[in-house]
């Protein structure tokens, strides 16, 4: 059978075997959590608690402010110790986080009401519940889910695509979720279909996870949910590439999937939706993979949002001596964190600790125009040219050549035999260009 895929891409070492056989464990509630008010794309939430307040797990502590924003909930039952400014790994600047210290004894929970069998609710009510639960895209982008489920007037959605590709090397949490929670994910998909009013959903899974394909097929038996097997190639799970591979639809540059009648949700998000709608549990925890040769033991864990990286690493036995960097996410798109005190976000799909040996690359040299970056770019850009224009500070020309269309997947920098860091200069150029334009387009 021909596997579905896109044009371009690369084949980095997958290293999924480091963690793919580890069953999901629940990390015991930590003694402290630090929950960013900006735990999502868009505007930070407004704090609803202050120092000294007692909170329950699931209690809303931050209110969404603005359309693209999400609620934030306490992930620990205890006492609010204040609002601290700490370095936000995604925003790269100090941002407010609510610090909660765990209370002794039994954990008190607060659930969203109403909740229960989703058939009781209208699509509108479901979107409201999801909004209330503070659910955002758990694949990493952290875009508020309720916004994706609210297409603007005049746009009709006819296809829901579920992203189970997990193309990022090393990470295995989506794989494990599909093996261990297939029924719940399927139920979450049905809830999303109901909310969107679509008749068809397709789950895309890379061919390197045949057991997940089996598992999801079994769980979706008799439902209008198909499982599509995708070629194992990075970045197969990038939104536009996934949509193209599965449906043949091309999302216009600068456009959104809903322009093509598609909504994409990650498998983890489906599980969160199921937990929120049918059990009233807001987004207070998530699954993530702890992996890389830089950790003593690998694991797939369910952790509370805001748990400190150090707490999670302690649970797996800590870091090895030759660790070079610790990432939020996988090695291709992950963000290197500065401090092990960084709390995990709603979008943190993994903690990857890499050793000096794993990050070794070619000695940086001048581009020899081998054209591999051009072949590898899934957006059909010319990374070598963007890098050149960015370094010459010719931002307008770079934008003409598609600077803003770059999805920063890193395929070009991965494949470059001259060790050129295209993505680094592209990211910087995007930032400068936006600043010069007065920050018009986010």
């Amino acid at each position, binding site marked *: 059978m021909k596997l579905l895929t896109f*044009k371009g891409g690369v084949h*980095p070492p997958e290293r999924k075997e480091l963690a793919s056989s580890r069953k999901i464990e629940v990390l015991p509630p930590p003694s402290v959590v630090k929950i960013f008010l900006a735990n999502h794309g868009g505007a930070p939430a407004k704090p609803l608690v202050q120092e000294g307040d007692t909170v329950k797990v699931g209690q809303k502590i931050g209110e969404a402010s603005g359309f693209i924003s999400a609620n934030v909930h306490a992930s620990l039952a205890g006492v609010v110790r204040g609002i601290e400014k700490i370095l936000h790994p995604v925003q790269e600047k100090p941002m407010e986080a609510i610090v909660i210290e765990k209370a002794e004894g039994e954990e008190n929970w607060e659930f969203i009401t109403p909740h229960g069998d989703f058939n009781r609710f209208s699509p509108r009510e479901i979107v409201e519940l999801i909004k209330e639960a503070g659910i955002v895209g758990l694949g990493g982008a952290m875009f508020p889910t309720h916004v994706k489920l609210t297409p603007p007037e005049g746009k009709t959605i006819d296809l829901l695509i579920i992203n189970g590709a997990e193309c990022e090397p090393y990470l295995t949490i989506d794989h494990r979720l599909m093996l261990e929670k297939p029924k719940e994910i399927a139920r979450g998909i049905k809830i999303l279909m109901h909310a969107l009013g679509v008749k068809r959903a397709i789950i895309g899974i890379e061919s390197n996870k045949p057991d997940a394909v089996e598992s999801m097929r079994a769980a979706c038996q008799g439902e209008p949910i198909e499982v599509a097997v995708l070629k194992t190639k990075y970045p197969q799970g990038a939104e*536009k590439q996934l949509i*193209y591979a599965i449906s043949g639809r*091309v*999302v*216009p*540059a*600068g*456009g959104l999937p809903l322009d093509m009648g598609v909504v994409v949700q990650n498998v983890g998000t489906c599980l969160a939706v199921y937990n929120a709608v049918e059990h009233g549990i807001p987004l207070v925890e998530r699954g993530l993979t702890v992996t890389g040769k830089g950790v003593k033991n690998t694991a797939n864990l369910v952790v509370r949002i805001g748990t400190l990286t150090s707490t999670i690493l302690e649970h797996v036995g800590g*870091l090895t001596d030759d660790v*070079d*960097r*610790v*990432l939020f996410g996988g*090695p*291709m*798109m*992950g*963000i*290197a*964190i*500065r401090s*092990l005190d960084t709390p995990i976000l709603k979008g943190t799909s993994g903690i990857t600790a*890499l050793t000096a040996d*794993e*990050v070794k*690359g*070619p*000695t940086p*040299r*001048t*581009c*020899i*125009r*081998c*054209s591999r970056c*051009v072949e590898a770019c899934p*957006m*059909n*850009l*010319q990374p*070598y*040219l963007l890098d050149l224009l960015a370094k010459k500070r010719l931002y307008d020309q770079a934008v*003409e*050549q*598609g600077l803003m*269309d770059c999805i*920063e997947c*890193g395929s070009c*920098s*991965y*494949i*470059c*035999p*001259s*060790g050129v860091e295209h*993505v*680094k200069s592209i*990211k910087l150029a995007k930032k400068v260009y936006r600043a010069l334009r007065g920050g018009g387009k986010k």
Partner: protein
Amino acid sequence: MKLNVVPSPHIKTTDSVPRIMFDVILALIPALVAAVYFFGVRALVLALIGIFGGELLEIIIMRYIRGIKDFKPDGSAAVTGLLLAMNVNVGLPIWVFTTGLIAALVLGKHVYGGIGKNPFNPALVGRVFLLVSFPSYMTTWWAPKYWKLEALTTATPLGLLKEKGMEAVGFSYSQLFLGNTGGCLGEVSALALIIGFLYLVFRKRIKILIPVSYLGVVLILSSIFWMVNPERFGTPLLHLLSGGLMLGALFMATDMVTTPMTPKGHLIFGAGCGVITMIIRYFAGYPEGVSFSILIMNSLTPLIDMYTRPKIFGKSMGVSGQ
């Protein structure tokens, strides 16, 4: 603990520029072996001067003239040197060859800023420099003689074709294919060159569409002209197997630095080389036009790049170059 904070991606290919260059040298070994077999040990001497002399010269240029003290050799100068050796005849005096090597690396490469910056294939710059500076040395062809070099000169198949017509060529196709003809070191055996080329294809180290369109266009044009006048224009097989075509199409026109960046650009580049080569072979003063055709197309590379920019995924129209 000190954590390294750098942008993604955090893993990189195990490939590198020196490895690519090493593979190109490996790919030229069959042709070198053929050259030594047919022309004798002197072929090996020229090749070794090219490889090691080229590298040494580049180190001197980089460290002592351009002042880049931490320069690490990448093997590209060795490739240039070896290719230059492949582009001269076996009897070329060492001092002439060395002059050509200096011209290749200085005029062909470092005056532009070194690797990645040069618009023309450095080995071809060296060859053409020698061709115009030492025409008689460069066009004295030595008969292939097993292991002993005799001062016998012989004409190349294309030279014979140009002067006397197809009747006078007198080489069998198997001679041309295997390498038993007069010519430059790297021109004699099409078979050895193809073996090396297949290695580069297998290792995914080559812009494969360039030789495909180059040889394709030569085949089409030579077939048409052969049908018009077989005696004057020669057979398609003669054109494919003789002269520097195989060496040029497989190893010179595929130089990464001096060729376009997109598949469409590769096709145009190869086709352009094919057309110019045949125009020179049929109508110009030289019997052979591979070097000139590649250099001319090298000069068009930026223009080809500009007009073959790929359509961005999701953009309804291609982006025009400015």
